[in-house]
């Protein structure tokens, strides 16, 4: 098509040259302009579908949302169209993040913020989403290209940077705080942050930002041997933060020594990553649209098809200062939370006929609240369900050094130390 248009332009040019009569030149120029317009249209790729103003439940072939809106008719979701109000930030657009982004885009999410500093490589082609012709593009640009084609209704923002550096972290936090999409939203500018990164450092950076901003987030991960993964919901102050305890990994369930780990730093499979992305986005939809049960932790062991679940309370001795502040706020807010819960229960009780649940209570059995403060001890997060192990050890405090030296040395001059090191370096 493009070649033909080019030839047509060429022909027009020679026609113009060969015409002795200048009166036709204007119309030939007009023709040429139209051909050029066609060429640029052709270059911009196949025509995109137009934006949709309202999500329709009408069942016709041309409605991109008919099958999603059917969730309402089936009684699963009360108000599906609310999804257009939500903003989700995805950190790490790799094997899990890119697929999660596509799923949310197809679900018609309001706005997606994408963070990654990597480029697409041929070595990524064993995973889903990216295509070979996108090699050497940044992952964020390539993702925006594909996602805006799939669903032009989604507002896409891309940030090509490393969030673990001081500068990158600042940009990350300020982008999460930006409320231009929905100015009257409470809290930050996003409803949920999804961590789809492949390393501990980046997870800790997301954890830091979310603890400081009191931002709910979900963590996801696939093991380096590609056979297990997990997702985890983190609500600052309410559930364990990522620094409360060393990270959990799903034990492979077979003799670790039989797993070859030499030679390669990480293996990956499209299957495991697709499963984990699916679990992550399912949990996200349940959280945002308020249906079903949102999982606090869900593991996936593909070798045994085993899915451990668990809950983790925050560690009162957590090394993260912002986490401790959120824990304190959560404790302070307990009476208000209880009152709200009671009011809700009472409202529900009004709906059921007023009669005692049990007429007599011969043994004086009563229900006690076990979600109080006394159960929030560090030991509670030390016992792990079967099939889960810690990835890193805790910092051990036993070797704590006497710090009597510290005050003496603290008045050293930084410049002087820098010069000393430079002198050694030269």
């Amino acid at each position: 098509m493009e070649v033909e248009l080019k030839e047509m332009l060429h022909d027009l040019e020679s026609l113009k040259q060969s015409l002795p009569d200048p009166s036709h030149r204007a119309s030939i120029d007009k023709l040429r302009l139209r051909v050029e317009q066609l060429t640029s249209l052709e270059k911009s790729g196949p025509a995109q579908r137009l934006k949709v103003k309202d999500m329709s439940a009408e069942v016709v072939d041309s409605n991109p949302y008919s099958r999603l809106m059917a969730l309402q008719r089936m009684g699963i979701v009360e108000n599906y169209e609310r999804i257009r109000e939500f903003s989700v930030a995805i950190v790490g657009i790799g094997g899990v993040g890119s697929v999660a982004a596509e799923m949310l885009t197809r679900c018609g999410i309001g706005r997606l913020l994408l963070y990654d500093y990597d480029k697409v490589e041929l070595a990524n082609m064993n995973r889903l989403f990216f295509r070979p012709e996108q090699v050497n593009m940044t992952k964020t640009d390539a993702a925006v290209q594909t996602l805006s084609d799939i669903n032009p209704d989604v507002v896409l923002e891309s940030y090509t940077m490393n969030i673990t550096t001081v500068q990158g972290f600042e940009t990350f936090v300020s982008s999460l705080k930006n409320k231009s999409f929905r100015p009257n939203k409470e809290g930050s500018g996003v409803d949920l942050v999804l961590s789809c990164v492949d390393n501990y450092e980046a997870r800790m950076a997301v954890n830091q930002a979310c603890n400081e901003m009191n931002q709910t987030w979900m963590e996801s991960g696939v093991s380096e041997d590609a056979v297990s993964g997990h997702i985890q919901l983190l609500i600052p102050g309410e559930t364990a933060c990522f620094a409360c305890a060393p990270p959990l990994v799903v034990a492979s369930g077979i003799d670790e020594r039989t797993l070859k780990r030499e030679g390669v730093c990480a293996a990956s499979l499209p299957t495991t990553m697709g499963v984990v992305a699916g679990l992550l986005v399912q949990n996200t939809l349940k959280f945002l649209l308020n249906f079903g049960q949102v999982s606090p932790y869900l593991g996936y062991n593909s070798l045994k098809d085993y899915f451990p679940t668990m809950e983790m309370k925050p560690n009162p001795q957590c090394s993260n200062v912002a986490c401790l502040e959120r824990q304190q706020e959560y404790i302070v807010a307990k009476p208000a939370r209880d009152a709200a819960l009671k009011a809700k229960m009472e409202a529900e009780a009004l709906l059921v006929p007023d009669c005692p649940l049990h007429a007599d209570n011969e043994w004086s059995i009563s229900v006690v609240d076990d979600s109080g403060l006394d159960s929030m001890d560090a030991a509670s997060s030390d016992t792990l369900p079967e099939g889960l192990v810690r990835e890193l050890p805790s910092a051990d405090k036993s070797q704590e050094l006497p710090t009597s030296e510290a005050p003496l040395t603290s008045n050293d001059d930084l410049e002087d130390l820098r010069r000393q090191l430079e002198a050694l370096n030269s």
Partner: protein
Amino acid sequence: MEGWDPNTKSTLTQIPLLTTKAGPRDGAVWTQRLKEEYKSLIAYTQMNKSNDNDWFRISASNPEGTRWTGKCWYVHNLLKYEFDLQFDIPVTYPSTAPELELPQLDGKTQKMYRGGKICLTVHFKPLWAKNCPRFGIAHALCLGLAPWLAAEVPILVDSGMIKHKDDATTSTET
């Protein structure tokens, strides 16, 4: 620390430990931490020099001390192989270790992540986590980078992935 050679162990015990737990966003406390980093780097460099085992140069390339650049080298079959060394201090430091980068070796070995970040997962990360916040940059070099170079440089040289700089020049001349 099982499985580490006695030399590394004895060197490690002589590198001053750090006490301040602070990252680059912590203001004055970070300056205090930075002083401790300098002291332990100075002590480690001096120790290497006096033991005739000098193997790196590193200095902060910004006043905040969050970006570090320098060189490291390894001697294999009596030839010295030198590489650029760089890393950033992450915002979550010292809970997370710096990710040491050898950009010239990017793509030449599987024991490396994107951008030339050396793989530290198995041999170093657990030690760092266990010793937070007492370990600093000097410890990361001693326990993270040194063993990586000792394991990887011989393989890289023997497989022809890297050439000694004299070999490289003679081969272009002939």
